[in-house]
């Protein structure tokens, strides 16, 4: 399987600027600056079918097209590297190994969008990543790939790394913009969308690290070749899947989009650990409803996963074996989300602790039949929260109710957790 993002990289080592350049790095930028118009770059991205890799899967080219074209005044690109979704660590792997790819990708995106100042919003704790990026930016500056009049083509760009104080909600693009402006990280009301009114009131595009890192390959290979690296005709490109849980190989793999769940688990993951039987998995980060054995044939691409009742999300797959209590798993995740609510809107701030409390009662054997109604109500009602955090948080609860209702009821009728495995709690 051909690697686009992780090619030439080695685990535990950061590619040097010279290594990157000598293996074809910045070729796309040179090509674009010399011969391409910004519109051609944007059209390539549209043609490639690239969809946002941060979780929502929105077509990147379309997102770019919402930026008003004939506007005077600055516009901004923000790279969202606030990777805090439990089970997701792809951006970290990518940037610890090859920060230059992001620098080149962002430069191309800024060229397409007419941006002269862009930001990389790095989550708290990613010290290595932030250091790598600063070094990469400095090296690119020295070689004329950043700064004023890049490669003599008249295009100028500054990249700034911003290290977040650290909250999950900063990954929400409008909360991220508020945080970057020095305000509380509360989401903003939409509309206006950031593409129209974002950072400091100016048009702003917020893209995920992996999304932007794909752009050099789209330019180098052409959109069609890039798109066809996927496993199905509907899917586009490759995707970083980060695997954790009860499988043999837990690592971040770059795989064609559209491989089935079963192929991923049995292939690169090396199957379940000895003595473990597959019970369920989180398909795309902590805010996605569970997949079970019945979903092994689902192609891991945005639309098929959505059709199967979950979301591809970030591609962070967490596999659970037969010893795992799914109530405990859900409780673990809800504790995270309840803690990470920004506290702006009532459903999220008050509803999530209610769900957490209810799951705690059930897991500790104090559950009542009406608790299931409470959970179901919250799955419905938290959709009406201010931003996507609370609806996302209810993904696992939704999965629990849909696929593990019997296990839930067993907890209540037995008055205790029926499973031994409690390591996740």
């Amino acid at each position, binding site marked *: 399987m051909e690697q686009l993002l992780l090619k030439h990289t080695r685990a535990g080592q950061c590619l040097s600027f010279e290594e990157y350049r000598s293996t074809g790095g910045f070729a796309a930028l040179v090509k674009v600056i010399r011969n391409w118009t910004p519109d051609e770059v944007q059209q390539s991205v549209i043609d490639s079918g690239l969809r946002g890799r941060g979780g929502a899967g929105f077509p990147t080219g379309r997102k770019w097209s919402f930026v008003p074209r004939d506007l005077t005044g600055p516009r901004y690109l923000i790279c969202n590297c606030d990777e805090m979704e439990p089970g997701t660590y792809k951006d970290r792997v990518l940037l610890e190994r090859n920060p230059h790819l992001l620098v080149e990708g962002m430069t191309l995106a800024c060229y397409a969008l007419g941006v002269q100042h862009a930001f990389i919003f790095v989550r708290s704790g990613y010290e290595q990543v932030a250091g790598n990026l600063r070094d990469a930016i400095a090296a690119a500056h020295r070689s004329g790939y950043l700064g004023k009049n890049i490669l003599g083509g008249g295009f100028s760009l500054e990249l700034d790394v911003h290290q977040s104080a650290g909250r999950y909600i900063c990954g929400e693009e409008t909360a991220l913009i508020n945080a970057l402006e020095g305000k509380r990280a509360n989401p903003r009301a939409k509309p206006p969308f950031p593409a129209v009114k974002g950072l400091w009131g100016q048009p702003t595009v917020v893209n995920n690290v992996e999304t932007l890192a794909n752009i050099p390959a789209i330019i180098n290979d052409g959109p069609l070749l890039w798109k066809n690296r996927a496993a199905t005709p509907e899917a586009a490109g490759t995707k970083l899947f980060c695997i954790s849980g009860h499988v043999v190989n837990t690592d971040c793999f770059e795989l064609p989009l559209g491989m089935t769940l079963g192929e991923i688990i049995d292939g690169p993951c090396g199957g379940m650990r000895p003595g473990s039987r597959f019970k369920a998995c989180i398909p795309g980060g902590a805010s996605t409803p569970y997949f079970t054995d019945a979903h092994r044939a689902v192609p891991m691409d945005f639309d098929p996963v959505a059709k199967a009742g979950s979301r591809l999300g970030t591609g962070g797959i967490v596999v659970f074996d037969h010893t795992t209590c799914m109530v405990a798993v859900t409780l673990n995740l809800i504790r995270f989300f309840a803690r990470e609510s920004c506290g702006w809107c009532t*459903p999220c701030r008050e509803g999530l602790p209610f769900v957490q409390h209810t799951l705690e009662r059930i897991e500790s054997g104090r559950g009542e039949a009406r608790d299931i109604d409470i959970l179901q109500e919250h799955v419905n009602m938290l959709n009406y929260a201010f931003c996507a955090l609370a609806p996302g948080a209810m993904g696992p609860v939704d999965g629990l109710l849909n696929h593990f209702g019997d296990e839930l009821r067993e907890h209540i009728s037995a008055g205790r957790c029926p499973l031994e495995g409690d390591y996740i709690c």
Partner: protein
Amino acid sequence: MPRIIIDNIPVEVPDGTNLLEAARSIGITIPHFCWHPALGKAGACRACAVMMLEGPVKGIQMSCMLPAQEGMVVSTGDPEAVALRHSVIEWLMINHPHDCPVCDEGGECQLQDFTIAGGHSIRRYDGLKRTHVNQYLGEQIEHEMNRCIQCYRCVRFYQEYAGGTDFGVTGRAGSVYFGRQQDGQLESPFSGNLVDICPTGVFTDKTARFRARYWDYDMAPSICPGCSLGCNTVPMARYRELLKTTARRNDAVNGWFICDRGRFSKAAVNSPDRPRLALVDGEAVSMDVALDCLRERLAGFLELDGPEGLAIVGSPRMSQEAAVMAARLREITGAGTLCFFAEAEQSAATAAAVALLTRDNAASQEDVRRSDLIAVMECDLLSDAPMMALAVRQAWRNGARVYVSGRSGVEVLPFEFETVRALTDIPFSSATNPVLICGADRKGIDSIRSTSLEGVKLALVLNGPNAFGTALLAGGQEAVSFSEALADGRIKGIITLEADLPSELPPEIRVLAVADWLPTRLIAATEIFLPVTSWVEMDGTYINHEGRAQRFTKVMHPGLPIKGLSPELHPPRIHRHDAPGGDILPTGEIVLQLLERLGSERTDLTGCGDTWKFLTLLEAESNGFLIYERNNGP
């Protein structure tokens, strides 16, 4: 003007009206906590959910967030919307303490009302309620954070609307906390509005804690006498004690808010030192006896010294009705002097300011809020007219440029500005709606007069709640300032009506009578003292800085507060029809009764010529009435 249908009722609303306001306009109250007309939408509480049946948006929506658009069909009673609103109340009540019986907000609490209205009564959450530590926020505002429902109104008001920096929000998720970095007096001069704006009992008026429930209060629409702006208020009293003051909405004047000085100035009304008994030569007598005695001595004075030596002295803090009566007293007695201002400088500056204002150039607080260029000249806004500073801030938040010149309280103003040397340095011509704010200051008024200010509206901050009215009257009656009259040397005796005369009077001048409700130093020098009502104990009119006549109405009966009685009298064991210390009258009424005793026919304002007739038609619950229109009637 989109046309929409809410609960089968068609309604047409102005562009930009949100669905919550549209529903209110036809009498449908959708529950809400975070939305406030002055602060706008936040979308935080999610209590105002409605179901969109038809139109460009479908499904459950927050009515505060959605502007009305043509063709929308809205249901507020849709089962799903009701279920969500029910859930919101349940969520909020998870942590809200059940302390309504001992909470000062009880009975006037939005959360209480909407919880009862929504029918939430059975608790499903059996965990602990979260608790917070309360802060000391000064002597005026009590903090009880456990009651907080995180609507963010307080911080949106304090920081965004009022520009305060010492109060804010910290924490996240369930531990969101609204307070200061550490205990201490809130610094904003508008902090009292937190009491009005909090939809539950986090911020309550500490000065009135545990004194009364909402339905116990004597309340009436009133006007703040604190400065010349005439902010609209609702004073709240019980047992003849003024307990608290809240803001009353008037979009043309103060909007939704008032300043702390106006809110918390009540001590003088309730003070045990307040002179409440009529005195003749230091002996307490009834009001009738005092007035009889004044008639006698006045007659004697007029006979002996002649009317030329008599001065009738009013002040800009008296109601316009009383001021008109003062002028009439002068006319009937033929007194040589009528004064409304103590100092010549103030008298001249106020007269000049009033002469500058016309119907077209007088700026209201609302004009200031809507302005795109504001100049502040020779005026310490936060001291002379605090709410004007808040109005300037709103304009500045909307992008207005602000220039300051001359005397000002520069270091604390809640907006950014550029300091300029002279009026001519301000680029008025570059603005669409420029406003010049100037104090009642000779230098400032003179420079306005000598500069061409075509198209610039004027907000001239005067000295006293009725400075405009008394200055108008002074002009018509050829009144002079007291200091000028004194220098003239013809004054032999004075009758003062709510007047603050600064210095010691020459001993040869007889102080025949003093009518006041404040314990001024003149009381010690007067032969006859006549206690009068304060603004909360009477009906009257003040004319504010822009020439807006505004009616205030009687909130409470005058008399010693009941808690001021001795313990053996509470509950009262002696039954009487009059209140102790309640034998007092409004100044205007006292003058009327004196005039009757002098043989004049009883009259009211309508008997004082057509000029002031319109005052009798003025309604308190209105936007007031601009004096320039008075020939047309209100």
